[in-house]
């Protein structure tokens, strides 16, 4: 059994590829995240607003795609992203607990 995670591809109004993740990301399900990212090409916005948990396995995947990623992240993920140094490579839009990107 893998950790529940749904990944929904889409487009932003500006046409940028958008990937919306809901659930938790850990080593048991990074395969699907990797596949979803591999399925897109060019810059992609990964919306993690509804992700409650992200571990270093997930971070590894994000680092691998750092050059083309933009992130939308909730407060609970803020410290993970900062501590791992990902925020230095990737633009991160923080959202409030319920609100739109700040």
């Amino acid at each position, binding site marked *: 059994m893998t950790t529940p995670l749904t990944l929904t591809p889409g487009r932003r109004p500006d046409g940028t590829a958008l990937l919306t993740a809901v659930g938790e990301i850990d080593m048991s399900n990074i395969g699907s995240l990797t596949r979803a990212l591999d399925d897109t090409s060019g810059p992609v916005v990964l919306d993690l607003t509804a992700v409650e948990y992200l571990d270093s396995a997930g971070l590894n995947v994000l680092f691998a795609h750092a050059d083309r990623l933009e992130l939308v992240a909730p407060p609970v993920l803020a*410290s993970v992203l900062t501590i791992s140094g990902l925020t230095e490579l990737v633009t991160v839009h923080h959202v409030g607990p319920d609100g739109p990107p700040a």
Partner: protein
Amino acid sequence: MARSDDVEHGLPAAAGDGVFAADPEVGRDLAQVDWAATPLGHPDGWPQSLRTAVSILLSSRFPMWMAWGPQLTFFCNAAYRRDTLGRKYPWALGRPASEVWAEIWGDIGPRIDTVLGTGKATWDEGLLLFVERSGYPEESYHTFSYSPLWDDDGDVVGMLCVVNEETERVIGERRMATLRDLGSDPSVVRTEQEVLSFAGRQLARNRRDLPFALTYLFDDGGAARLVGAAGMPAGHPAAPPLLPAGDPDGVWPVAALARGEATLVQLTGGPFTALPPGDWPDPPVQALVMPLLRQGGAPYGFLVAALNRYRALDQGYRGFVELTAGHIASGIGSARSYEAQQRRAEELAELDRAKTTFFSNISHEFRTPLTLIMGPVAELRGRLAGADPQVRHELELVHRNGLRLGKLVNTLLDFSRIEAGRMRASYEPVDLSAVTAELASVFRSAIDKAGLAFHVDCPPLDEPVHIDRGMWEKVILNLLSNALKFTFEGSIRVTVRAEDGSAVVAVADTGIGVPEAEMPRLFERFHRIEHARSRSNEGSGIGLALVRELIGLHGGTITADSTEGAGTCFTIRLPFGTAHLPAGAAASRAGAPAASAAEPYVQEVLRWLPDDGDGDTRTTAAAGTGAAEPAGAPAPGPAARARVLVADDNTDMREYLTRLLADAGYDVTAVTDGVEALHSIRREAPDLVVSDVMMPRMDGLQLVATLRGDPRTAAVPVLLLSARAGQEASIEGLQAGADDYLVKPFAAAELLARVRANVELSRLRTHHARWRTALVDSLQEAFFVCDEDGSVIEINAAFTDTLGYGPEGLPYAPVHPWWPDAESDPEAHRQVEEAFALLLDRPKGSYTVPVTHRDGHRLWVTATFTDVEDPVTGRRVTVGTFRDVTAEHYAVQRETARAALSTSLSQATSLPEALSGALDELKRLWHAQDVLATVFDGGDTPALTSTDGRLRWEDLPADRRGSLADLRERPPLTPVAEPTGASVLLEHPDGPLVLWIDLGEHRPFTDEDQLLLSLLAGHLAQGLVRAHQIDQQRETAIALQRAILGPSRLPEGFAVRYEPATRPLEVGGDWYDTVALPDGRIGIVVGDCVGRGLEAATVMGQLRSACRALLLQDASPAQTLMALDHFAAGIPGATCTTVFCGVLNPETGHLTYSSAGHPPGILARPDGTTRLLDDGRSLPLAVRPGRARPEGECTLPARATLLLYTDGLVERRRRPLDAGIHQASEAVQQGREVAIDELATDVMTRLAPTGGYDDDVALLLYRHPAPLDMTFPAESSQLAPVRKALRSWLGQCDLPQDTVQDVLVAVGEACANAIEHGHRHSPGETVRLRAEAFAQDLHLVVADTGRWKTPRPELNAHRGRGVALMRAMMQQVTITSGPSGTTVDMHTRIA
């Protein structure tokens, strides 16, 4: 999963599956019951109420069964099956309950009817039921309640039984009680018969486990004798009084038992008909026969234990019988060894007394006939001076041998006197050279005759030496006769010198010498060197031993140097001065020489020598040794010779008078002045004193006046001689009290006439007085007369024998010299002082007091006195007698000491206490400075116990340690006396014990003391064994109580402690309990029964069981306590028990509680504040049964700590309870960052009073929430559920959201690492996560059993990132990797 298979059985089975799903195993068996054949019908038609009841039943972990419907159809769960149903499973399922429990239906049927009829629950505690679940009717005990079950319409259609089987507890307690009682006899010393009858009484009290019991002991021939029967009527054929050895047809298998083999005997037929049944309906069918084993020997006998037919002979039962037999065997062992020891000590003491008495008696007995031989012989020698040579020759032979025998007897008597401490020495200052030379000269002719050279080299010494002349004579004469005996050529030399502050006297010879091997035993009594060449083979082997003893009495030493074939030299050293002599024994004056004992020695020596061809023809042995005869004293004459004392300072006149009177047949003693005369008269009153008037120091008139002033000498007649003529002088003399007066010069005839007249007159006059004196002297008891002031003015010979003080010292004014010294022995001095006051005040009376012999040794005398009026003077005097009761006194003292030690030992409740109490007794008995016991228990340093409690082994001086260790090599119970104390070896249960009594000064440890110490040491060894047994029994009792105290497994988050009161007290009635309730909540109970010991523990066990069952039935604390009120009211000793009862929801921390008079719980919040749980309070149990009880409630904040306890933790004398509760609150508050179990230890330690708790303490701690502890397979799919559980637990911990997320990430990384790296190559291993909350700290541990591989470069980034995240999120991360796995340990502070 297993249930999914049942789908194949079709719909009906599936419906059953739903009802029975809560337990897969019992459920399956229930599903297979043909329900359609029962009144209940097929399960899918069951009402909801039945389905619910079955579901509750199956999901409970507590033993339950239920009955439903018109036939009371039987259901049960797995726990009931396991504990109670036994072989009846699964047969019983679905059957009518009356059929399932047919054998006990008589007991339980009416109860079930009550439940069904009234709808009210029943309650039974420890009910005895005979169940047949193992193939026989089995004794079993059950605590249970029957509650009604309602159907969907609200009618009672069945009942549910929650049962707790307590068979093990009830039977265990019963057996324990018997074993405890067997060991509870308080007396230490008992005879074998007492031991057996005590054991018999105890066994008879447990006739359930032992329907009957017989004790047989083997006699010497191997036959077994019946010595004890419990529960068996006298004369029953199964208990024959005697079983012959090796009888194959005997009732009991004697032969196997004699070999030490236990046997199980079937009690069928023959002598086993009509056996007593014990406390059961039917008689026993088996008996276990156990040998009474003796360590290292054949069994003492055996115990026949009839077995309870309603219990299987399992390991526990067999162990019980073994322990019982062991108890009896050790009791017999103790009693026998005690009796043997007692006998031996008494025999030894008796032997010792007999020996001394024998020596003393035999010597006396010889002296009387000897005197009667020697007197007539001396007369015959005089009378037959001109007789036929043959007659004279034979007479001489008799005379010589008489002398020799007398000498031997005197020597033996000297010895017995020395032994008994009665040797009277009178030390006077002498010129040792002159005295020694004079003695040597006596031997000169004999030595000359032997052809040896004799050198006497005795120049005068500068200082006098104090000696007893008589003793010194014996010393020198013995040494010289010894030298002559063994010297055949060469010389004998006697020298006297002063050397290093001592006088040194040497007697050297050029004789045969002493072989080196014999040297060590040279001075031993009765030791003779065999086959030595000597002039005579005669000798008792006692001479040198006596010499050494005599010199010892002078404070001197004697040594011998010898070279075989070259000669021997004896060297004596005597100290100058008087410091070494007993106080008061030194006489200041040089007295008249004591009558010489030289003649027998010289006579004996001469007989060894060849004399002019034939020694036997010598006419008079005394010819060459005239010097040895006392001046003026003819051979012993008839007793009627009158004694005359001549006192004159003029030598010529003295000798003239002496010759004149001696020739006239008087026994004359001559002295030089009045003082000497007075001494001589006091020693022995003469028939007449002839005294010059003019003398130095004391003249004749003064002498007369002094004699007349002393009642003892008032009647001695005095004839004064004076050069002063004239009427006045004569009148003066007569006025002074003289009987006659003669003026010099006088005619010899006139003097003799006057003397004769006076003697005759005096004899007439003093006949009565003499008779009285003879009478008094013949008294066995010591006799004395005291004047009004208490001065002793008259004594007899027995007085002198007993105390060493002779008549020459009269009068003895108080304080008498025999009083014990006020300084060194104030207690004894006080006793004598009191007795003396009694003697002065009362007309008559009696007392027993300690006194000091002149030579310093201690005596006890019993004196009787009475007042009389002196018929002559009219003055009041006290006449008394006393006898030496030293031996009786010490016998009484021994008994008293033994009794005191017994009492001390029997009151001790532990081995260390027994030992230290005994040491205190010994210290008191001997007035010792310190008494210490060293047990060589095999440890690095021996275990030391002392009356000075601070002393450690290391503190002892090295030589003391060494001598204590050496003592282990000595035989046990044999005291060793040393100058400052005594020691003895005995057996301690832990190893050899060396006892050292430190008197702290040079005080003699006498033979009496040694005997006493030996007895007491034996007694102590027995007592210690006993205390050791009691210790072991207590340990067992405590272990038993702990076993029935609390749950074997505590829920997470709890910590408990139980501490029995300190050693003098015993186990108690406090308890704690946690009960896991079916709905996930936890019942918490802490209670305190009144009283202590096993009885309180028994009450506690019942209350605890009841409380458990009640909580399971109705999880409301108030309801539970109310029900417990009723229950406790029916149990003796349960009233006034205090209980805190609570029910906790571990998820929310919500706690409802009720307190029956129990101290309030303490809640320590994480913010440092404290709250007392003091709501819901009411009376202790059973004080007002039926009264409603209130309930309190509170919610434990996250990370708060709850403390429940019994009052022993906080209650102290002279301190309000609040202070103790406050102290406990502080302890919990300060420990809020400490793990809960550690905190429990801290609280117990911090609150312990000095010297330990003096009441029982039970304590229970809970910290909310309980730690999360989970183990999961090392698979990544587990990460999400683990995270979920952790998130939920963190929710209970009331943490900031950031912290929750940080913890989730850090733990997630650790778990991922464990899964990925720890078990990469061995999937399926497990990972353990433990999370524990403290007030301000979270502690997280992730542990795996694998090994983290050496990181590979391509994994570095990832791996590094995970660990970096952990470190960033947590305050502290420690990763420990080892062969058994890797542990990540993390802490984070809670803001």
